Structure formats: C-alpha cells, structure tokens
C-alpha cells in the first residue's frame, strides 16, 4: 500500500513538472528567440474592416499592460495568428475588436476573450473579458414570451399576440430565479445585448429583425426597456417615449412611420409561421454586440459573432412560456500556445 502511494506520488510530481514545462530550460527561464505563439479562435464571423474593425490579439503583463500581437486572419468561423512570442512572458492573452476609431497600440473596450498564460498555454474565453468579473454567460436566463400589447387596448387579449416577442418570464415559478425578470450576465463596458427574431435562421436569405439593445442591471436582471422603447413597428404609439413597457421586446404590428422593412414580410407578422415541412420559420436569438452599434438606424442592424442564445419560436399559444436556451457553440473561444 505504501509502495503504491509512493509510486503515485512520484508520478504526480513528474506530471506537475511536465505541466510546468519541466525539463525544458528555455521554458523555465523565459522564451527563446525562436519561440512562437500560435493562437486559434473559433466561433467568429468575418468583420467588415471599415465599419466593424478587426480582431486583434494582445499580450498582457501582470499589471495589465498590453502589447499588440497582431491581427487575426479570419477564415470562415476560425481566426488564427502565428507570431513571435514576446520577450517578456505574458501573464495573459486577450483578443479584442479594434475599430478604425480606436487608438493604435492600446486595446479597445471591446474585449472579446481572455485567458491566463500558464505553462506556455492559454485557454481563451469570454469570462473576464466580455463578461464582468469571472462570470460565465448565464446558462439558464429565463423565458421569452409571445405577446403583442399594441392592440390589446382595442381588441382585448389575446389578439394578434403572435406578432410580438418580449423578454420576461411568463411562468416565473419555472425559472431558477422564481421571478419575472430574465437574467443575463453583466457585460464589460464595450458590449451590449441585442434581441432578434430571425426568419429562416441559418439559411443564406435569413432575415434578422432586431427588437432592440439592452443591458442588465448590476445583479444581471433585465429590468428596463430596450433602446427602441415600445418598438418602431408597434403602431401609432410614440415608440421612443410612450413608456408603456418595462421589458425589452417589440410588436411587429404596423409601420406608420415608414421605417425600412423587408418587402417579403407582411405586418402584423406571424411569428408562429411554419415552413413547408411544418417547422417553425422564426427563431429567437440574443446576441452580444459592440456598444458602438448602439443608435444604429432602425432597419440597418446586423448581428455580431457572439450569439449565445437561440430558440425556435414554436407554435404554442399566448400565455405559454418559451425557455431561452444557452448555445455554447454561439460563443467564441480560443487557444494560445508556445510553439
């Protein structure tokens, strides 16, 4: 028994040495001149360099000082970078989105992912970069609800409920928080959440309709309306200032103010619309967008790469809760390693 423990101890010590780069003098004393850093990120979308910017990698020292490593080459959903490892061993590696407006040589507020450099490796994730502190993105945020208050004062409830979506818990007792408010992880200052209804998600001609951008409060609760207020397609209401709702969401009921709107769609929308196979044509998506997108003209919104929540809208009746599902594949992540 003692011998077995001793053997285990020796193996554990060897494993620890190996994990720390033991046996390689260049790694224990600092990078060699030939050492390179290879970074691979998955889950990206190509950015328009003028309007959206580029993905930039950074080496951070223990005090948070940043040294640019270079711009990621994006191919499909992957981004790669192969550069000489900085002379000073990094404390962590970070990827940001840099726009033309951001000053050169320092990371922007759009911190996409970060990972601690340890033993010549770093696993990069959105925690502590995109999300505030070390919080992960919420795994069980709550519910979205089919509801269209636009005409309820005229036509009662339910009436045309299938033309709107709102972000609150219709069945609070079915949520971990047991209250009415959806929870999302607070984001660092460079980012904001945006809600969407997407027709034919995943197809080349998919239509993305934004219902607005919003941020949680310090506790993660979504307690305020989105940046388009009542909703530009809600009808005759003053959508910016009516103050009729306290949650993000919109009704696609009518378009009296003539905002740009896809010509293939008819108002009021039927978000329960089915395709030829009987499948739901509409999908609810929550993305994370650069804060610089805030205030973009209605009708010109486009989704960013970070799409952590996606659900078929489905065909269930008014008053039925719809659960928001976390999709890890919609969140970029990466690995950096010394080569």
């Amino acid at each position, binding site marked *: 028994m003692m011998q077995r423990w001793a053997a285990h101890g020796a193996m554990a010590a060897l494993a620890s040495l190996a994990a720390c780069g033991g046996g390689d003098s260049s790694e224990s004393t600092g990078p060699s001149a030939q050492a390179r850093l290879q970074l691979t990120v998955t889950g990206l979308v190509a950015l328009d360099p003028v309007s959206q910017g580029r993905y930039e990698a950074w080496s951070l020292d223990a005090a948070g000082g940043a040294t640019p490593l270079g711009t990621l080459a994006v191919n499909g959903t992957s981004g790669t970078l192969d550069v000489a490892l900085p002379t000073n061993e990094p404390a962590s590696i970070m990827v940001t989105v840099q726009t033309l407006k951001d000053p050169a040589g320092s990371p922007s507020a759009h911190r996409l992912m970060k990972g601690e450099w340890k033993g010549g490796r770093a696993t990069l994730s959105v925690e502590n970069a995109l999300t505030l502190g070390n919080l992960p993105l919420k795994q069980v945020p709550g519910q979205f609800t089919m509801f269209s208050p636009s005409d309820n004062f005229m036509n009662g409830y339910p009436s045309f409920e299938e033309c709107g979506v709102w972000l609150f818990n219709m*069945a609070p007792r079915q949520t971990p928080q047991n209250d009415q*408010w959806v929870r999302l992880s607070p984001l660092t200052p460079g980012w904001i959440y945006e809600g969407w209804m997407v027709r034919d998600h995943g197809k080349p001609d998919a239509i993305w309709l934004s219902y607005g951008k919003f941020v949680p409060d310090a*506790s993660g609760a979504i307690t305020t*309306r989105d940046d388009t207020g009542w909703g530009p397609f809600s009808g005759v209401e003053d959508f910016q200032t009516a103050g009729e709702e*306290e949650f993000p969401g919109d009704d696609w009921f009518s378009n009296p103010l003539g905002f740009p709107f896809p010509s293939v769609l008819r108002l009021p929308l039927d978000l329960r619309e089915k395709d030829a196979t009987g499948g739901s044509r509409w999908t609810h998506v929550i993305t994370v967008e650069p804060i610089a997108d805030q205030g973009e003209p209605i009708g010109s919104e486009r989704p960013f790469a970070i799409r952590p929540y996606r659900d078929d809208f489905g065909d269930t009746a008014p008053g039925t809760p719809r659960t928001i599902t976390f999709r890890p594949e919609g969140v970029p992540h990466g690995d950096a390693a010394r080569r």
Partner: protein
Amino acid sequence: MIRRGAGVTGTRRHAPRVRCAVPATIATLLLTVLGCAEPHVTLAPPVEAEAANWPTLVLPSAGALRPPAPPAEGSTQAARELDEIVALQRSATAVSDSVLRLHEGDPTSLWTRTAVDLLGVYWTILPDVRVATPARSARLMALLHAATYDAVLATWDAKWAYRRRSPAEASDRVRLRVSDGAVPSYPSEHAAVAAAARAILAANALPGDTARLRALMREAGEARMASGAAYRSDVEAGYALGEAVARRVLQRAATDGADKVWDGVMPTGAYVWQPTPARRVKVPFDALAGTWQTWVIPSGSAFRPPPFPVPGSAAWLASMNELRMLAAGGRTVVQMDRARFWATEAPTARWDLFVEEELARRRWSLPRAARARVWVSIAMYDAFVACWDAKFHYWLARPITVDPTMNTIFSTPPFPSYPSGHSTISNAAAQVMNALFPEKSREWDDLALEASNSRVWSGVHYRFDIEAGETLGATVGKAVVARMQGDGVR
C-alpha cells in the same frame, strides 16, 4: 338532520381495493417487472366526518343545499352508471391515467394553483385590465376559497347523510385506480369543488380562459368516474352543489362594493400621490377598495393607522436617507433578488402557495385543508381593504415622486405609498399561519419581515410605510384568528 359520522374521524372507513385477476404475489411480481401503468392508490388522509357540522361562511349551514338521495345500489340507473365506468376503465391509457392522478387528492389545491397561475398571467401582462390588481387578486382568492370551503362542507353533509358506497366498493367489475379518499361517494367533492371554483374564476377571468376552466372542471368529474371513485350521479350532484354554492358567493361579491368605479378627484399639494414612472398610470388602482365589504373586521377604516411622519421630521428624514443610501449602490444582489421575488405576482399569491406547500407536507382532511386556505385568504383580503382605506385616506406620494433622482429596481406600483400593502397582508397572513402551523411560526414571521423589507430594498416604500403595514396587518390577522378559532374546530 345531520347524521354524525361518530367514530369515523381519523380512521379509514374501508381500505381501498385494487382488484386483480391473478394471485396477489404474481400480480406484485408482474407490476414490479412491467413497471405497472396502474396509478398508485395512495393512503387517504383522515376523513373528519364531523366537518359537516362546522360553521359555513356563506351558506346557512353545510346541509342547506343537501341534494336528493342518489340512485339506489342495484337500481337500473346505478347499473347503467357502473357500465359506463367499466367502459371508461377498459379504454384507459397512460395519458388518461395521468389525468386521474392530476385529480387525485385535494381538489382545492389544484384549483388554488390554477387560480394563482391565471392571476399570474394577468398580473404580468395585463395590468391595465385590472383583473389582477393586488386588492382584486386578494378578493378573488378569498371568494374562491370561501366557495370551495363551503362546497366541501356541503358535500361532507350529504356524504354522511346518504353514505353511498363508491363504484369500486359496490362492484367487482370496477377497479379503484386512485384513492377514493375513504369517504362516501355521493356527491363527488372533486366535482363540487371544481364547479364552485370554475364559477368563481370564470366570473373574473377573461373570455379566452373560461372555456379552459370549464374543460378542467369536466375533466375532474370524468377522472373521478374513470378512477372508480365516483358514479356519474355523484359527479353531476357535485357539479350542481358546487355551482349552487358559487352562486351564493357571487351574490355576496356582487354587493361587496368592488364594482363601484372611482370618479373622485385626486387631492393636490406637496407630498400627495402623483403618477409614477415608467408607465405613469394616471388613475390609481382600486381607489375604493378601502370601502369594500370585509369578511371579519368591522370595516376598512376600523384599524386605520395614525398619520405618517411629518415631512422634514427626523423619522421622515431617516426614511429618505435610507432610501437614498440604497439607491446609491447600497443594495445587495440578494436584496434585489428578494425584492423581485416578492414583486413578481400579487403578494397574496406567494402566501397562497406557501399554504399549498405546507398542506402538501401534511395529511389533513379535505375540510381542514380548505379551512386553512380560506382563513389565510380572508386575512389577506381584509388586510388589503384596511390598507387601501389608509392609502386613499392619506394619499402619500411615493419616494420616487418626492425625490425623482432616486432609482427603484422595478416600477413603482400605481397607488399611494402609506402604508405598504405587502407588509400589511404578509403580517396578516403570518398571524393565521402561526395559528394553523404554530411549530413553524418563526418561518412565517421571517417571510413576513422579508416581504416588508423587500419594499424598502426596492425603493418603492418608506420604512415607516412598512412599519405601519406590519402593525395594521398583525391587528387584522389577530382578528381573523379569533374568528377562525371561534368555529370550534380543534
């Protein structure tokens, strides 16, 4: 008039039988191996036959609406009804068995949860319809529980007047697929409660929901027949009895003052209530609720609290300073979450569900459980009336109106501030809960305190609002407990 069920209380009148065509040991083995689709027959709670003599709330007595005698055992009608049950049991499926289980046990629990869910939807998405305002939610639950309580007592009266054996007892052709409650089958208590509850809820529900409620009521009766616990004549008599009880409760409701529309003029001046952000609802909710008919306390104004602290006084400033500290980042995440918990539904709904959770842990008879529900509901309703009397007597402005720079963690409710409704009804409910479940009194008191504090944490109430509410609620609660304990039930 009422034949007492002496010697029945707390005992099983008969053991529920599950008849099988194979020897018991083989059957047991088969059931184990196959996972048996047969619903389990659970142990019935105590019966308390003497509940037929308990005081009713709206009916003159439990026997006031006693139905005529059921068809005699062996009669043509009884035989026809047995055939119907046999046919139902032959066509049973896993789906239909799940419906049997839904309607097993205490029927009032199912209808309470249905009502709370219904109000939850109205509360969340239809505030302007004003069906589920705080006071109206409390009123509806009190009416619901008064109707179901009287309906249960009325069935108890008839059950022991006629002592009809259930179909499963009367015929070897019928299997008892769930518990029959160990009570005589006529009239069906499940049908009576369903009919009473449906009528009360439908009178207050939106048109789209009434069909669903009727379907649930019909399902309850069908389930009891398919389970072998009730004949069709049991169910039909139960429906008739429940509807008759509900009619009387709705007659009372028609004159309780809730239909009156406030056409008064809001007072003006410093520290007087004004519409609050974000919705800025112009007409406050239920301005006349303080005049509604109460169940126990003499009137809404009977225990009116003293005036709130003078603005600028030390007590006033202390309350404002506390709110400003909280608004300036002084709230913890836990405080925010608990404030949201208490704000998510009508506050009465939270207490209604606490009662359900507590009853689910106990094996109380149907009448005793219905009694617990109705007195908690009545305490909360009377507390709301008392609170609304004070709110619209003093018309105190909300904190966000006095200092618009303060933030709240959700929108301020559209009615005056003093005293707090959450504090008033929670302390009234806790008093009754303490009397019903005394070994857990610390828990009820803690919940009431948290409900109170949550209103300050959220920024929608002053500290003195909740203190006045606590005192008022405790006073109302004690009055309700005194009345409850005067019914002679031990």
